[in-house]
């Protein structure tokens, strides 16, 4: 599936749908969701105070472990040091947060940009643990960004919301009145239609 291969925004009046499409595309750009969304369909019916959105996500990325972004080895044995060499700087800040939380700031050193030294108690078990440590989980941040996108894209005031996230299918319905079951059904129908495309 290509990124954003289907991008439909519909409204009762066609021009208003196009204007709303620009709002949705701005929000997608801002939250860097362009690459994650495969197909998206939004329907706004202002006369019913209804907003529906169906999204099919592209295959999600796996979790990032420390061994994926650098190497962990024994440093100075006498001082019981563990040395981490980073190859992908992108995740450095997340990694530092995790290390500070586990060892405390006084035991984590960064002698130069891509090298971290940790004063560990038991170097062998720490190395084993650190290698498997999850540094970042794109799926979790993706989910929170999707929710953020849904809230931003909804017309202000539509505070009654329904959402469902099923592996890579995301359905969102919002209104200012109690949600009718058929609206939610329609949205689920939309996501099924998107799946069946091509």
């Amino acid at each position, binding site marked *: 599936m290509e990124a954003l291969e289907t991008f439909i925004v519909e409204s009762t009046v066609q021009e208003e749908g196009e204007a709303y499409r620009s709002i949705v595309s701005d929000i997608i750009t801002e939250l860097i969701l362009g690459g994650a969304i495969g197909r998206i369909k939004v329907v706004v019916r*202002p006369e019913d105070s209804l907003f529906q959105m169906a999204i099919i996500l592209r295959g999600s990325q796996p979790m990032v472990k420390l061994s994926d972004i650098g190497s962990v080895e024994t440093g100075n044995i006498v001082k019981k040091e563990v040395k981490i060499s980073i190859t992908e700087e992108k995740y450095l800040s997340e990694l530092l947060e995790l290390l500070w939380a586990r060892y405390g700031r006084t035991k984590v050193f960064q002698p130069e940009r891509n090298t971290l030294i940790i004063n560990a108690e038991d170097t062998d078990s720490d190395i084993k643990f650190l290698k498997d440590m999850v540094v970042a989980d794109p799926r979790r941040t993706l989910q929170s960004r999707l929710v953020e996108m849904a809230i931003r894209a909804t017309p202000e*005031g539509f505070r009654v919301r329904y959402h469902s996230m099923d592996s890579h299918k995301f359905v969102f319905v919002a209104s200012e009145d109690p949600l009718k079951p058929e609206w939610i059904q329609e949205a689920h129908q939309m996501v099924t239609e998107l799946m069946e495309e091509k």
Partner: protein
Amino acid sequence: MAAILEPYIYEGGIHKHSLITELLEDLGGYLIQKVPAATEVTLVMLIPRDDVHLIEELGKKLLGKLTRAPLTGTEIAVVSPTLASHHLPHSACDIAEFMRRGGANTNMIGLARGMGRRVSLSDNYERKLINEHDFALFSFGTFSDCIKNKKPKLLEGITIPKIVTGGPCNLKTEDVANADLYVGNIGRVAHRLRKSDELGALDVLLEKVVEVVEKMREDIAKDPLAVLPARVMKEIHEQIPDIFNVLSPAPVTLQLDGLRVKLPYGEFHKKVENLEFDEGLKLSDMAVITPSKMKNYILVKIKRESEVGFTA
């Protein structure tokens, strides 16, 4: 009869800009606002019509630029049904910015419960606050159904002229109940307005707002104010030095028929009421001085000649 004053904005270097303000004072004009920014300065002023060329010539020598700013001396309420942070940037922000370029002072007002359709409403306090301004600009959204059927209730109870902006360009002013003017093509967008058609729409809005203001000025001229708001401002600067301790960008904000003095009402309203004029008059003879709904400020609304019997 006082000289006719024309509103202008001077933009230039801060070096020797006091020559401009001195000349302006000699000519009998008024400096309304001075905004220094590093080495640049922006002067908003009222210049006697016959002497504009003098300031223009001096400005040229100082390598500055003098442009006409037709909205000078107006205070505009830019009202948005919501100023929620997750919808930033609001198009209302750009509208306010454009009005300021025209010389106006703007106040952004985000209604507490203005969002939505059925649930949208405005508070009595909010309506009173909006009514203190010269006119109100309501920034609505993309859907004509909302603008026609649901949002006009926000305009109820607003007694000043109401200009509505929204996305649909095929709506007419008559379609929006209670509105005095509708300007399209400025709906909800999730980015700053910078494309040429968006800026074009803002230009149209500014043009139409200027027309409304000119009409309001004409209406006032039929039964003139007892004293010019700019003159009251000058007297405040001379007689109440505490105004110089106010950190707000416009400590005295001019309106078409009055001014807002950004000093606490309790402490200073007597001083404002007792402001003396050369003619032997006090401000309280010529104006109604009340506490403003905005913070604890003082609101001065100047009476008309027909009511007072003279002009100062």
